[in-house]
């Protein structure tokens, strides 16, 4: 056993050719450090009192056990085992169970300075033996020593102590365990005791401060030899789900989705989405230029959520809660009862006070505290003052990730600027959104009128028609689209004018039609009269003609008779009776 530990004089000369890392399993930290802590090395975790060093270190062990099946040893210099177990039970970790399963070993090293008298040369072999025993008994791969300051305050011979700590870190390396040691932050330096001089591989600094009445824990990777790492400060949370650090890159996209729907609060808008509204847990973007009614649309949704007996969180970045309530009253929406009953939480958040990360954190906290079923952010455009478009998108990605994880339906409003194809502004965001409503103003006939497009709605059949969007004193109303004769959309008074015009024309046409009918009737009557006259005329002619024929025949008979008489008289041969007319003509 002894042989495994290097003598105090030995120096470690060989280095691992490639830096291997061990994933901590702590949300966000692995992304931040590009894979985790240096494997088989010691990481220094420093920070002020109450900055969360112990929590983070313990989380490292518990995650190791739960996610990577790597047992861990926690050497506690400050808190007793019982105390630790109690503290972590409130964070959802059952340390006693882990100890019983031999996945975790906790060794409380009790050093009372008043009890210890230094009488000469010594070393910390006792600590080494305890540590080795604990590591070997459960096959630990992770070790935490919390915190080193106790040793420094208990033992006066710092020369011995420093030598022993150097030996300890070397020994931990040869033991192949990945270790975290914690230490108190000093004035103007990372640690009070200068431990950072010995632990050169990875140093993480924790910080906590109160800004604008808001307590924030922050984490920064100060140093990570041989590895890239995020250099900024990142807020982190300690809650019942453990420690989570929030680098904006960390997200999962591995949540379950439902098919349930939630009402948008506007029946005709629901109708446009297959009659049932937004998807539960979906993200909705409402974009539009100033004064297009984005907030009103959001208010309808809030009201619908609250009246359905579900909690809604409204983050107002532009208006105060009372202002929103007043303004919504003007369109017949009274949000006050919902606010009073606690179903609607109007939370004013000045966007410029915090950075994006802080907003994300604030959101996490609020969502955790309220557990809402829907969240409204009005409007996300205000973030442009504190972050670039890419950063905002990344933050929203994380947020939507959070919402979807919790099956929260989210509605974001976005102010688009200018009139030139407003969609372009929000195209980047649109990929994050399940439903995208665009509110536009159409200028015609010296007025601006609102129209609503349902640009996209993932996973449902939806109307592709533009609707006119009206803010009435009974709330938002969607009107049918009306196309003018030239195929252009008509809205507002132009629509009314067009409608009146068309009605007049219809009446006119009706009248014209009547006239034509009558005229035709007249014509028909005239024609029939003419026909009758003609017929009468014809009949007269016919009668006349028949009369003439009769007379001629009579005359011819008479003539023949005369001739027969004459021949008889002249005693001539029988003369063939010929037609008198023929004879007459031949005789002429």
């Amino acid at each position: 056993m002894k042989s495994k530990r290097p003598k105090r004089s030995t120096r470690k000369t060989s280095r691992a050719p490639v830096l291997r890392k061990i994933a901590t399993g702590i949300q966000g930290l692995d992304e931040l450090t590009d894979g985790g802590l240096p494997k088989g090395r010691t990481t220094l975790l420093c920070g002020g009192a109450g900055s969360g060093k112990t929590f983070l270190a313990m989380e490292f062990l518990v995650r190791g056990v739960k996610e990577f099946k790597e047992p861990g040893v926690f050497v506690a210099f400050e808190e007793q085992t019982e105390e630790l177990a109690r503290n972590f039970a409130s964070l959802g970790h059952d340390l006693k169970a882990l100890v019983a399963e031999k996945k975790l070993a906790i060794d409380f090293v009790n050093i009372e300075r008043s009890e210890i008298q230094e009488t000469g040369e010594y070393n910390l072999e006792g600590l080494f033996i305890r540590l080795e025993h604990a590591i070997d008994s459960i096959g630990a791969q992770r070790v935490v020593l919390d915190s080193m300051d106790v040793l420094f305050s208990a033992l006066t011979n710092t020369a011995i102590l420093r030598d022993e700590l150097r030996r300890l870190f070397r020994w931990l390396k040869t033991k192949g365990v990945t270790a975290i040691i914690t230490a108190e932050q000093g004035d103007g330096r990372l640690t009070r005791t200068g431990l950072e001089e010995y632990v050169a591989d990875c140093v993480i600094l924790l910080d906590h401060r109160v800004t604008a009445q808001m307590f924030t824990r922050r984490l920064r990777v100060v140093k990570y030899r041989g590895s890239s790492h995020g250099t900024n400060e990142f807020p982190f949370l300690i809650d019942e789900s453990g420690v989570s650090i929030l680098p904006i890159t960390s997200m999962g996209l591995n949540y379950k989705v439902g098919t349930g729907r939630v009402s948008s609060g506007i029946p005709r808008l629901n109708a446009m989405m297959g009659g049932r509204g937004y998807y539960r847990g979906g993200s909705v973007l409402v974009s539009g230029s100033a004064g297009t009614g984005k907030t009103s649309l959001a208010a309808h949704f809030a009201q619908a959520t609250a009246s359905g007996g579900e909690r809604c969180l409204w983050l107002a970045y532009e208006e105060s809660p009372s202002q929103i309530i007043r303004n919504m009253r003007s369109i017949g929406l009274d949000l006050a009862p919902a606010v009073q009953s606690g179903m609607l939480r109007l939370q004013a958040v000045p966007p410029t006070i915090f950075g994006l990360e802080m907003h994300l954190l604030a959101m996490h906290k609020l969502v955790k505290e309220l557990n809402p079923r829907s969240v409204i952010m009005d409007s996300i455009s205000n973030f442009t003052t504190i972050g670039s478009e890419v950063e905002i998108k990344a933050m929203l990605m994380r947020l939507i990730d959070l919402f979807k994880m919790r099956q929260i339906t989210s509605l974001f409003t976005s102010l688009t600027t200018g009139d030139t194809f407003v969609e372009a502004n929000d195209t980047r965001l649109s990929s994050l959104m399940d439903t995208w409503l665009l509110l536009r103003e159409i200028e015609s006939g010296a007025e601006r009128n609102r129209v609503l497009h349902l640009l996209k709605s993932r996973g449902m059949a939806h109307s592709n028609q533009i609707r006119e969007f009206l803010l009435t004193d009974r709330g938002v109303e969607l009107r049918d689209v009306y196309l003018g004769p030239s195929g252009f959309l008509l809205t507002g008074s132009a629509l009314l004018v067009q409608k009146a015009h068309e009605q007049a024309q219809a009446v006119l046409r009706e009248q014209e039609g009547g006239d034509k009918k009558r005229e035709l009737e007249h014509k028909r009557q005239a024609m029939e009269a003419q026909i009758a006259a003609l017929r009468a005329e014809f009949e007269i002619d016919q009668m006349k003609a028949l009369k003439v024929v009769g007379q001629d025949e009579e005359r011819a008979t008479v003539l023949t008779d005369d001739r027969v008489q004459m021949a008889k008289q002249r005693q001539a041969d029988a003369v063939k009776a010929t037609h008198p007319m023929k004879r007459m003509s031949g005789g002429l």
Partner: protein
Amino acid sequence: MKIKPKGGSIKASTAKPEEYWTLRLYVAGQTSKSTAAFDNLKRICEERLKGHYSIEVIDLLKNPRLAKDDQILAIPTLVRKLPPPVRRLIGDLSNTERVLVGLDLRRNN
């Protein structure tokens, strides 16, 4: 390794007659420091507590569990189990003055 010195007369100036001292010395193997500590302890006890003390030497390499159970950090560590209260001394006990203070033996001087 248990050493019980033979009995002898106890000087009234060193310890109360009814007191019996139980001392434990924790070491890790046979190192120069541990032997020095034992020698120093033996010397002091013979001088002050003759016949009224016992020294138990515990080698943590042979019994590592005891390091945790008895809260041992530094090596060598001397624990005065009896008389109460428990007192702890670390180091090779070469500084006699400090050993006497630590064991609370100076009051009778």
